[in-house]
């Protein structure tokens, strides 16, 4: 069942990536396509190699640890063979890549009934809800806020919005969360309505993590949108549009805003990398059963295949998102083609 599902997912992901590349190829030329594809392959091989080799050279024998008091020579050899640890490193890496192509990330050292893939499937949904919820919320509120700040540049509205954005951008979520916890505990002790400070799954547990996770991304987008808008508003075509007598609203939203969006697209990649780390912290501090909490637990238990699996999953996600961003960028700004 699980293997059917995983191969189905692999096929779907493959088709989507291929479709994107072909689409990009038509639009942006074969050279762009080849360069992107090579870059993609290089990055995936790089990431998997780093993850693999660090696990390979990690001291401490996981098989020995796992057997514990049940250690016998035969059992040890059997288990070493089961994990494929008796092969030379290049063969192990080859096998590792081959299995990765089939979305087989190996077995957990701690609980060998579970494959890494099933563990990921168990924990990914919460992280995905948190991540997507936070990013969508941040972009939906952040971009219009940035536009407002740009329109009102150098007024009190602008400087207070900028101040809020700077503070939210600089403060890590693990500084905001304890303060939130203190307030909630106090509200609770006064018998006032309060939000939960841990858990996941119901609305009242999800509101706070999503908002706090989204806060820094929100600030990032406010700053970015503001500077992008300010630059566009300087352009000649904006002046022309104003001179034609178009209403200010139309100038801002139809002429300026659309062009200001282009730099925002390129920022999705870095924002995502930022978000991945943010997810770890928010999950741990709110006790959310997501991929971050699971990775941290796996590290303390030295369950290396699970750590490897999450690292690869996250970095491949980022690579694919960067690809999507590039393609979208190519569509949004035809000038990129000539570059």
């Amino acid at each position: 069942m699980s293997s059917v599902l995983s191969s189905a997912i692999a096929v779907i992901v493959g088709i989507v990536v291929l479709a994107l590349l072909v689409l990009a190829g038509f639009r942006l030329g074969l050279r762009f396509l080849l360069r992107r594809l090579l870059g993609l392959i290089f990055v995936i091989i790089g990431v998997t190699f780093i993850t693999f080799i660090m696990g390979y050279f990690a001291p401490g024998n996981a098989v020995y640890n796992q057997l514990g008091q049940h250690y016998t020579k035969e059992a040890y050899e059997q288990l070493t063979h089961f994990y494929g640890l008796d092969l030379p490193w290049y063969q192990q890496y080859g096998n590792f890549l081959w299995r990765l192509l089939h979305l087989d990330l190996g077995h957990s050292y701690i609980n060998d009934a579970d494959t890494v893939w099933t563990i990921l499937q168990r924990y990914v949904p919460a992280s995905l809800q948190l991540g997507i919820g936070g990013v969508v919320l941040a972009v939906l509120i952040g971009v219009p806020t940035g536009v407002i700040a740009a329109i009102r540049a150098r007024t009190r509205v602008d400087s207070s919005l900028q101040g809020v954005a700077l503070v939210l951008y600089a403060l890590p979520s693990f500084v905001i969360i304890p303060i939130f916890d203190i307030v909630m505990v106090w509200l609770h002790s006064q018998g006032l309505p309060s939000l939960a400070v841990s858990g996941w799954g119901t609305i009242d547990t999800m509101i706070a993590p999503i908002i706090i996770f989204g806060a820094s991304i929100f600030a990032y987008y406010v700053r970015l949108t503001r500077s992008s808008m300010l630059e566009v508003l300087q352009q000649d075509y904006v002046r022309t549009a104003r001179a034609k007598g178009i209403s200010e609203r139309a100038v801002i939203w139809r002429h300026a805003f659309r062009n200001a969006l282009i730099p925002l697209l390129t920022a999705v990649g870095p924002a995502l990398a930022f978000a991945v780390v943010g997810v770890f912290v928010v999950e741990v501090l709110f006790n959310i059963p997501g991929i971050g909490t699971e990775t941290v637990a796996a590290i303390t238990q030295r369950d290396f295949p699970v750590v490897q699996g999450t690292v690869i999953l996250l970095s491949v996600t980022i690579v694919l998102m960067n690809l999507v961003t590039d393609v979208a960028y190519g569509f949004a700004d035809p000038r990129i083609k000539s570059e």
Partner: protein
Amino acid sequence: MNPNEEFEHVSIGVPVSSGTFDELMVSQATLDAQVLAEQDEGKSISPTRAAIRRLTRDRRAMISLGIIILIIGVSFLGPLIYTHIGPTITGGPTLQDQLGPQVYHEYTHQELTQLNQPPSAAYPLGTDQLGRDILARLMAGVQVSILVTLVVITFDIVLGLVVGTLAGFFGGWIDTFLARFTDLMFAFPILLFAILAAATLGPAFIDRFGPSGRLLLVSLALGLTIWPQMARYVRGQTLQLKNQQYIEAARCVGGSNRALVVRHIVPNLFNIVLTAATLDVVGIITAEATLSLLGLGVQAPGSSLGLMISDASGQIYIQWTEVLWPTLVLATLVLCFSFVGDGVGDAFNPRTKD
């Protein structure tokens, strides 16, 4: 010729890629007026000195710098005095033991009769869940933050400068390497790499270097991965400097490549390196705290702001002030460094902000 003058000329040609364009133009206008005024008085000042002057006039940055110096000073010098002041308390295993501040103001000392105490004369900020003095642990934690930052920023500057100038000046394979490595690091967030390193090599480092081994490992992992961004800034600036006439002139009078790079390019990179490094500090402090918070950085007897926050989070129903102190100190440090970073960016690169 003063090379710094050349730098100012160079930056005119740099397009304003982002940042607050209007403000920059305004600040540039006032700056030009200042320089003119000073020249009228019969003395011209170097651009670097002008930048420092601009920085000292940035009130927000200066106040932040003052707070940072205060926090660092107290954290490094404070423990020397702090372990000698405070009343003698009764505690210890037999409860009749008399304890002086040199014992209970030690940041690793666990006074098991004094768990989760509120602030008092003996413990100005109270104690944590193991009866350790919070103020002492805060000072030790800030020391850790600063030491890690120093190590990582050294890696950042040295590697970024070397790879960046070589890639920009000579191009070729080192440029390709830099581009590919940066691609890789874009997909592989620094913290993810550090988490992986802590997971695989952490136990070995602890065996070899004691409890602070994990910390050393984390510093190395951050240091080895943080530099590509810096190298990219340096590379871009080097590419622009390379085509300047004064470089051509230096080459004409027989300057070797090494002399060109060391004497004419590197000094002109000062502004951009300083700006990038100041902004990186915020990221490093946050990264160390994050790793310790996740249990991958500093280990138990040691102290770190991140570790203190994670320890105190569990005590929030018992003694809520415990989590407040490390949070406040960390927030202050991060905000002040951001303000200083902003100020340095504005003062040293008035036309380029990114």
